[in-house]
């Protein structure tokens, strides 16, 4: 094995050349301990504060509060409701009208009769003896504005027929154990002669009660589906068992439009108007 030297250092301890060594002075101070002249000494105050560590009378502030709901079924908004004004007078014409095919009569006298629609339509003719237009009474402007808002015969609206406005314990159906949706209808007539038709719109500002075999049901067991006029429905979240008689209390509207595109208002005295004929007709949709 050979030895190898990787580094060789020569170190020498030498005495520096005194002649080549410089002394350096970077600062010289002269300090004297003396007594100041008291007459010439000022005291200075630049700031003074008093600090206290304590609890403040903190108030809580509320600037906004809302109730947010996660909701189902944003149906088409209900059409406007026909205004109810005190000047409505007599006569009132109410004309149910079935839509049937013309009767075909054979030479033998035998007839062929066909109905186009199961349920009748309804025509109404109303008279307004007066509509006030005084600073505090806006009957004329209300009715005039309503006609403008629905654009004559173009727009449908809810007509509260005072002679056919609500029902109590109206029979809707007998449950079959598989159906959970029914169309809401009302039955009109007496003396054993009646007709049953779907209501135009349910008036949900009035009480709406539901019964099975005469027993009132909780409001959270069903919903009223009002999206389609003349096809108002009640839907139960859980399908009812078979053989129960379903009945309801409800108020309702006819779904109507103006029969004409014009309406004649006549001013017969200062601030008093009259409308001699307002014709309405019910709609299927």
């Amino acid at each position: 094995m050979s030895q190898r030297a990787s580094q060789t250092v020569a170190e020498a301890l030498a005495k520096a050349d005194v002649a080549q060594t410089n002394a350096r002075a970077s600062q010289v101070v002269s300090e004297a301990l003396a007594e100041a002249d008291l007459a010439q000494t000022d005291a200075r105050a630049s700031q003074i504060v008093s600090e206290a560590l304590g609890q403040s009378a903190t108030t809580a502030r509320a600037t906004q509060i809302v109730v947010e709901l996660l909701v189902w079924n944003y149906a088409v908004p209900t059409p406007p409701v026909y205004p109810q004004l005190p000047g409505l007078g007599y006569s009132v014409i109410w004309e149910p009208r079935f839509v049937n095919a013309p009767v075909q009569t054979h030479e033998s006298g035998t007839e062929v009769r066909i109905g186009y629609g199961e349920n009748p339509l309804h025509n109404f003719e109303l008279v307004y003896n007066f509509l006030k237009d005084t600073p505090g009474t806006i009957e004329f402007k209300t009715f005039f504005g309503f006609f403008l808002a629905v654009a004559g015969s173009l727009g449908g609206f809810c007509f509260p027929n005072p002679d056919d406005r609500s029902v109590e314990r109206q029979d809707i159906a007998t449950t079959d154990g598989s159906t959970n949706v029914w169309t809401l209808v009302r039955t009109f007539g007496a003396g054993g002669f009646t007709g049953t038709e779907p209501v135009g719109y349910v008036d949900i500002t009035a009480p709406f009660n539901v019964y099975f075999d005469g027993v009132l049901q909780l409001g959270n067991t069903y919903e009223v589906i009002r999206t389609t006029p003349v096809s108002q429905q009640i839907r139960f979240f859980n399908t009812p068992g078979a053989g129960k008689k379903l009945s309801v209390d409800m108020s309702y509207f006819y779904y109507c439009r103006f029969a004409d595109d014009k309406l004649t208002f006549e001013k017969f005295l200062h601030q008093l108007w009259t409308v001699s004929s307002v014709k309405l007709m019910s709609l299927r949709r």
Partner: protein
Amino acid sequence: MGLVVFDGYDHYLNGNDFTNRSGVLQYSNTGVTFQTGRFGYGKAVSGAIRASLSSGFSEFYWGSALNIGDTDTISFVDNQVGGGGNQFSVVFDGSNGQIGVFNGAGTLIGSSATNVFSVNTWSHWQIHGLIAPSSGGSVTIVRDTSDTVLTLSGITTQHTTNATINGWNSGGLGANAIVDDTYFLDTTVGGGLYPCNGFIGDLRVDTLFPVGDDAVQWTRLSGATNASMVNETAMDSDTTYNFSATPGQEDRLNFQSLVNTINAVVGLQVTGAYRKDDANVRTLKQLLKSGATEVYGATNTLPSTYAYFTDIFPLDPNTGLSWTVAAINALKAGYNLVS
């Protein structure tokens, strides 16, 4: 739980105010704007939404209405507050009406048919996500109430250390969607008629504002009623407010009625904006009264700047059943100073 939280975006002032939410749902980005909401109700939000939840969920149902101008991406994120990591993203491509699902690494893992949505049109979307590693995850996308447009199963949806998400991102990076009526559900069976643990459909958020005092004890800054101080449709900070330094004092207010087209109420939450005006601790709880039953939400410590606190009530506390329209129209809500 079922119903975790929802937001109709109806009561915010601006993007800065948007980030004042606290609790179960928070937003971290101020760069959003508000405009008229879906169907003309309230407001909707557009811009980069960065939503974070207070806890993580391994399986969830997210629902929201979207009006996509060109494109949008909904990303479901783990560790949202800490920087985030996508578990998966749903990309709406307006050029062909197609929806693609990308994993957290940015790889396309499935696409819908084309033309399943139209640009500049409101549509409602539900996204079910199951977060799992090793091909154990799934994603299902449903349009409106029940039109399934894409189902992916046996996919890997975990791309971070956690098999959960605790937030979502929408918008930003050139996306231009308008968002409204957002809800978030977990798979727990909720009570009442609406368990809210699956595809629950196209829902809307209806926001009711105070209309009058029921019983009040706080001091109002001005005006004739305490309700008038807290009924603004866009939060007005210290312009109008009620205040109190007396523990136990509460304001109970009447609210607007529901519009008559509402058929069913899936859930209710009370949201308010509160702050303290000096040092010292102030705590507050919100209240809800239905019928004769008055209940309180969580006790919250107030910060020195306004923060929104939300308490959710999926069921009517007076009946223990789902809410009815009549009960909603008669309810009272407010706030109580605890300390």
